[in-house]
């Protein structure tokens, strides 16, 4: 299979106006991905599916990722004049990246048996109305998975044939997989709460005291 640089060049040539970036992956798995812009996503996806050399007809996995606002520190070696001498100095820059929700598609080819080619799409922000184009018209396997991303992250997909909640019940209101999701407060009694579960349980029942005074709570059992 061709390298990602070649694919990027051919995509930019075939779909005019498409902006494609390569996102490097630092782990030993060497699975780098292509970030495509939201406007031309469907055209790029169609081209990836139909191009005779690639024929990526199998969309294996559609994932939603919630990125909070983060600051990334980059240390770069810069030539600076220090004490009259030109030296290489480490300069740390801090980059503030606002949060967004991302959809990652892992594409394989069943005909040529190669892959994966990984494409990513990002929303502008983490607001509940964040929208992305749906790639279900191109790969039918994205249908249930995009519904799941809508259900668990709150990201809407334009052009999806049937966008409704799939794993949670229809009247549910929040989006469970978001990083700032707070579970509902309905704590039933738990004998060994600790750390943050202990904090949440305190309004509901007296958690166990530090000393093991639980002998006074129940009678000895007949086992």
């Amino acid at each position, binding site marked *: 299979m061709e390298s990602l640089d070649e694919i990027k060049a051919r995509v930019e040539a075939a779909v005019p106006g498409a902006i494609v970036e390569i996102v490097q992956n630092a782990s030993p798995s060497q699975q780098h991905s292509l970030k495509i812009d939201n406007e031309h996503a469907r055209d790029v996806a169609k081209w990836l599916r139909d191009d005779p050399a690639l024929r990526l007809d199998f969309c294996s996995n559609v994932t939603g990722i919630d990125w909070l606002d983060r600051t990334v520190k980059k240390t770069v070696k810069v030539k600076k004049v220090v004490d009259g001498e030109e030296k290489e100095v480490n300069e740390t820059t801090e980059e503030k990246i606002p949060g967004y929700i991302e959809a990652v598609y892992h594409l394989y080819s069943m005909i040529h048996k190669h892959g994966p080619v990984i494409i990513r799409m990002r929303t502008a922000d983490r607001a509940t109305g964040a929208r992305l184009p749906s790639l279900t018209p191109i790969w039918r396997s994205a249908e249930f998975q995009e519904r799941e991303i809508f259900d668990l992250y709150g990201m809407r997909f334009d052009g999806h044939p049937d966008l409704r909640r799939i794993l949670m019940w229809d009247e549910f209101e929040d989006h469970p997989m978001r990083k700032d999701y707070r579970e509902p407060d309905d704590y039933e009694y*738990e*004998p*060994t709460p*600790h750390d943050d579960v202990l904090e949440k349980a305190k309004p509901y029942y007296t958690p166990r005291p*530090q000393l093991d005074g*639980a002998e006074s709570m129940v009678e000895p*059992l007949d086992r």
Partner: protein
Amino acid sequence: MQHPLQRFNSLTNPMIGTGILKGMAVTARNFVGSYFDKERLITVQYPEERNPLPENYRNFPFLIYDGDDSHAGLRCVACKICEKECPPQCIYIVKSEDKKPDYMGKPQFYPKVFDIDISVCMSCQICVEVCPFEAIKMDKDFELSTRERFDALLMRKDDLAKSNDYYRRISPIDAAEVDTKLAATAEAAAKKKAAAPAAAKPVTAATPPASNEPTASRAPS
């Protein structure tokens, strides 16, 4: 490659019912065979008969104590590693304030409270894997049903502490390994203790080297 279905001649020219009759022949063979062949009679009349449990079978954890005293011989030093690593967070430990000597004689903390909630525990054995003191092992008792589902399924230190003899009975191979390992550690520690006062003796006891040779350094380990 011969198509696997071509083996069944009845399909190329079926008489209605031959397939069903073939199936009945199989069941008849099994039924009659169960009188003669042990392998075809697979039901175990529990609870009168029980299948023997394999050596590796694990159910819920328990704490080990050496000797007869469940307090003095308890191996657990309340390091809280199992509490941290437990995936469903079902272990609850409170460390004591005083220390007691362990099997090697060194004073260690002990757990004042050690509770495992077995309605939450998923028997994954990670607590056993990460314990550095061989203090927690997996039990094999599975007949633990109770009538109340909260405090009755909370096993406290007294319920959990079982002797090393019990462990030797239920898992002889593992217990033998653990015993040899602990004996080896105790021996190594004792050797180290004996070697330390020997090194503290004055160096002049060593034979003085010849004038031309460099001084060999006899650094104690």
